[in-house]
């Protein structure tokens, strides 16, 4: 597992470095390319307007644009008093406020992220707690969704295990981690630099979680150096010592499999139109438009328009320098001068901040629309479990949900679990650990569309295990009633083979800002190590953090 993790990190690093090296190589071998010329600039204002500047230069170079009138579509996107220049201006202004540490914008970003968390509260397809088999969990059935950005959950109580514990689960989206590690537009909202298919098909649908059992200490086997007391010599070659508080007991990877994800098909286009014209989503676009117009009004009142002389100079410079450098300099000079008075407007910071908040919500609405249009059919989940004193296991799970909207959501799980590593010689068990099927019904019972919501969940779980559970006997353990040490690697069957039934009723309070408090009661006919029925209780708290990058840039809560 560690090896796989390091390989993944290596792969990410290679992709990152390759992009960097290729970009540099490209700029060195193709200096006449206006796109390379533009992207070589460090000024945010130039980078934000690169697409327009490059298109302008190319159009002049290929002879399509010969006059100022021909250049109108480009000039209208560069003139700060024109509406189509406002979008990029807001991006530039937001970046400048961030770089200069303007508090108001930081607060706006926090507001944006909190608003995203609030918007996500209406979703009942997300799971923040550890999976069913953890020593501390409130989830009997896995849900198809997980944290959009980052979540932290603390759960106490067990469902299928005998040993009660408290687990902390940290979940995040792979795309967020990738953007943070590579520095590729890590705090983006709607204008994320897309990595194309790799991002859309690999990173975005992938969520990863780490489960740490905080009631267990990490242990380490160390060699002993001799008997310290006792009258009879007892050969003990190694002993287990604690190595730290909290133990990583599991890693979960969830990949959302989307149905009909082909934007070229008519079916997808129809689904897309239906999804985006949904009233709530449409209103995010309208709000974004209203707030953009608020900034546009400041621009039109304060910015200097592109005058005829500047337009002529830009055109002439584009004609004389096909690299685009002169055109870029002309625009840079214009932007610096034209934006000076605008940036002094005392209301601009807050209005730009509000646009950024709207862009965050708009992006979330876009992602939700995409999921709805494509149809979330299945989620594949992989769990790597590292239970204490038991063999490690790999669980492969398919999660299917059907949303009846106001009538709630039904989720089905089917899972197969196998033992990790080599099966010991002479083992009386096979590779199979267990198979299970389960189902859950969730419904928001009060507070729909409000900050405080309540949700009820009813779940049933059946697991079939061909052999009893296996317990690893720790090195140095002495056989009861004797002083005979058991050989290293000894395993014993505990509990019984066969069916394990669990039912659970759960009530979840979903508060403002992304806080969830699930409280559940369960009944099971047995647990993994003990015979006899058990009634248990589970309680947890989870928090949907704001942007992952924000945690490291000091802009988060």
């Amino acid at each position, binding site marked *: 597992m560690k090896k796989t993790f390091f390989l993944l990190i290596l792969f990410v690093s290679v992709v990152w470095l390759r992009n960097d090296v290729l970009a540099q190589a490209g700029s060195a071998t193709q200096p006449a390319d206006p796109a390379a010329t533009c992207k070589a600039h460090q000024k945010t204002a130039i980078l934000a307007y690169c697409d327009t500047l490059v298109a302008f230069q190319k159009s002049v170079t290929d002879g*399509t644009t010969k006059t100022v009138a021909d250049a109108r579509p480009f000039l209208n996107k560069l003139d700060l008093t*024109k509406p189509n220049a406002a979008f990029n201006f807001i991006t530039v202004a937001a970046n400048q406020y961030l770089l200069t540490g303007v508090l108001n914008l930081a607060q706006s970003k926090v507001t944006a992220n909190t608003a995203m968390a609030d918007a996500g509260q209406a979703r009942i397809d997300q799971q923040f707690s550890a999976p069913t088999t953890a020593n501390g969990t409130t989830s009997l059935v896995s849900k198809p969704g997980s944290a959009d950005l980052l979540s932290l959950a603390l759960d106490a109580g067990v469902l299928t295990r005998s040993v009660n514990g408290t687990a902390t689960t940290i979940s995040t989206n792979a795309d967020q981690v990738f953007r943070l590690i590579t520095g590729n537009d890590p705090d983006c909202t709607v204008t994320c630099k897309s990595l194309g298919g790799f991002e859309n098909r690999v990173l975005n649908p992938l969520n990863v979680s780490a489960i740490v059992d905080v009631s267990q200490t990490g242990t380490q086997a160390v060699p002993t150096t001799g008997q310290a007391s006792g009258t009879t010599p007892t050969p003990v070659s190694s002993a287990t010592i604690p190595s730290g508080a909290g133990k990583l007991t599991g890693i979960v990877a969830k990949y959302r499999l989307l149905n009909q994800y082909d*934007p070229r098909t008519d079916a997808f286009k129809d689904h897309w139109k239906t999804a*985006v014209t949904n009233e709530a989503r*449409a209103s995010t*676009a309208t709000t974004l438009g209203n707030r953009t117009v608020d900034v546009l009004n400041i621009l039109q009142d304060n910015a200097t328009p592109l005058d005829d002389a500047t337009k002529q100079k830009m055109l002439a410079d584009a004609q004389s320098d096909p690299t685009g450098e002169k055109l870029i300099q002309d625009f840079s000079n214009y932007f610096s001068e034209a934006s000076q008075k605008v940036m002094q407007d005392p209301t601009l910071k807050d209005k730009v901040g509000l646009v950024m908040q709207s862009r965050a919500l708009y992006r979330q609405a*876009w992602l939700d629309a995409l999921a709805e*249009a494509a149809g979330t059919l299945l989620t594949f989940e992989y769990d790597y479990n590292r239970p204490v004193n038991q063999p490690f296991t790999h669980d492969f799970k398919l999660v299917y949900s059907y949303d009846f909207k106001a009538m709630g959501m039904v989720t089905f799980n089917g899972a197969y679990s196998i033992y990790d590593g080599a099966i010991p010689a002479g083992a009386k068990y096979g590779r199979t650990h267990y198979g299970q099927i389960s189902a859950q019904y969730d419904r928001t019972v009060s507070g729909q569309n409000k900050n405080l919501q309540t949700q009820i969940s009813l779940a049933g779980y059946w697991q079939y295990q061909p052999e009893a559970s296996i317990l690893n006997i720790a090195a140095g353990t002495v056989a009861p009633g004797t002083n005979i040490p058991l050989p290293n690697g000894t395993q014993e069957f505990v509990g019984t083979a066969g069916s394990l039934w669990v039912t659970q009723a759960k009530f979840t309070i979903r508060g403002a800002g992304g806080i969830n408090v699930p409280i559940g009661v369960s009944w099971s006919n047995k647990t993994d190590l003990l015979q006899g029925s058990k009634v248990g209780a589970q309680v947890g708290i989870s928090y949907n953090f704001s942007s992952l990058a924000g945690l490291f840039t000091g802009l988060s809560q």
Partner: protein
Amino acid sequence: MSEDTADIVGTIESNFTVKIDSATIVSAFLMVKGQPDLPLAILGNKREVTVPDLPAGDSTVRLDLFWAPGDPDATIDVGTVNSGAAQAIPPKQTIDRGQSPGFALLFGK
């Protein structure tokens, strides 16, 4: 703004549609300086809005958009002219992929 920089020029009080060939319009408004924004009717294909009465001088159509994966830049054009005259001035203006809102500059004369 002026006729020189307008994307669409038409006769005062003309009735026509403004259309785009990419993205989905979810709301649209006619903006005239000093007047409240006028919501515009979106036609069935979600890529066309009706300007019922072109004002004199400068005005702007604001289009709130959602871009589907793979949508290219949208070109602004005049669809159906129901009364009066209106035409998109070449070269036609585009809205960059991913941007919302997008704007079309109108001029009535």
